[in-house]
């Protein structure tokens, strides 16, 4: 089945130690998104790639970076995780990214910072 896959499902890192979360998709969609969802809050968009074009939301901290080496894969890099970065990180895709279309979400990676 075509889907959005995130690995790992749970990630534990230490304060200040760089960490990378991965997302892959078999939908062949042009757009990939990363959302952050803190406990008992709504998901919030960090950034997205329209094909190879990177689009950062204005209030996304510089500590968060992303890479998209090809259509299928997208990575979220947290350079120096703080305790406040503990959250669920959700990857999503959409076909064209021109609005008016469904976004499909992966199962998420829950990040714990010690």
């Amino acid at each position: 089945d075509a889907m959005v896959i995130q690995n790992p499902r749970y990630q534990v890192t230490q304060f200040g130690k760089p960490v990378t979360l991965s997302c892959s998709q078999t939908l062949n969609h042009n757009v990939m998104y990363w959302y952050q969802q803190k406990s008992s809050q709504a998901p919030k968009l960090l950034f997205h790639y329209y094909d190879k074009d990177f689009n950062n939301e204005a209030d996304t901290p510089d500590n968060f970076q992303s890479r998209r080496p090809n259509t299928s894969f997208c990575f979220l890099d947290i350079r120096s995780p703080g305790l406040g970065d503990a959250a669920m990180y959700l990857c999503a895709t959409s076909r064209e990214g021109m609005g008016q279309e469904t976004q499909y979400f992966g199962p998420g990676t829950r990040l714990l910072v010690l």
Partner: protein
Amino acid sequence: GIQVEQSPPDLILQEGANSTLRCNFSDSVNNLQWFHQNPWGQLINLFYIPSGTKQNGRLSATTVATERYSLLYISSSQTTDSGVYFCAVESWGGSQGNLIFGKGTKLSVKP
């Protein structure tokens, strides 16, 4: 930016009961989706419904775009319906692809 308000914030139902969840938004939208977030955190698409009415089994949704609200109906609820229901919108004047989520309705269905 666009504001999204969901009500009620919490809802407890007995299995078999029906419910209506509401989503109000403050501006015109070109995208509205309803999601169910299960206890493991996965967001599951329920409906893409910027306007009109759709039905899928026990679930149905209606969006009245001119009045800026959407309703999600759950009939004959089951314990597996428990979780958080999110409404998310993308406004015509907003950043493309940026879904703005409401705070969700936490539903608990008791056996």
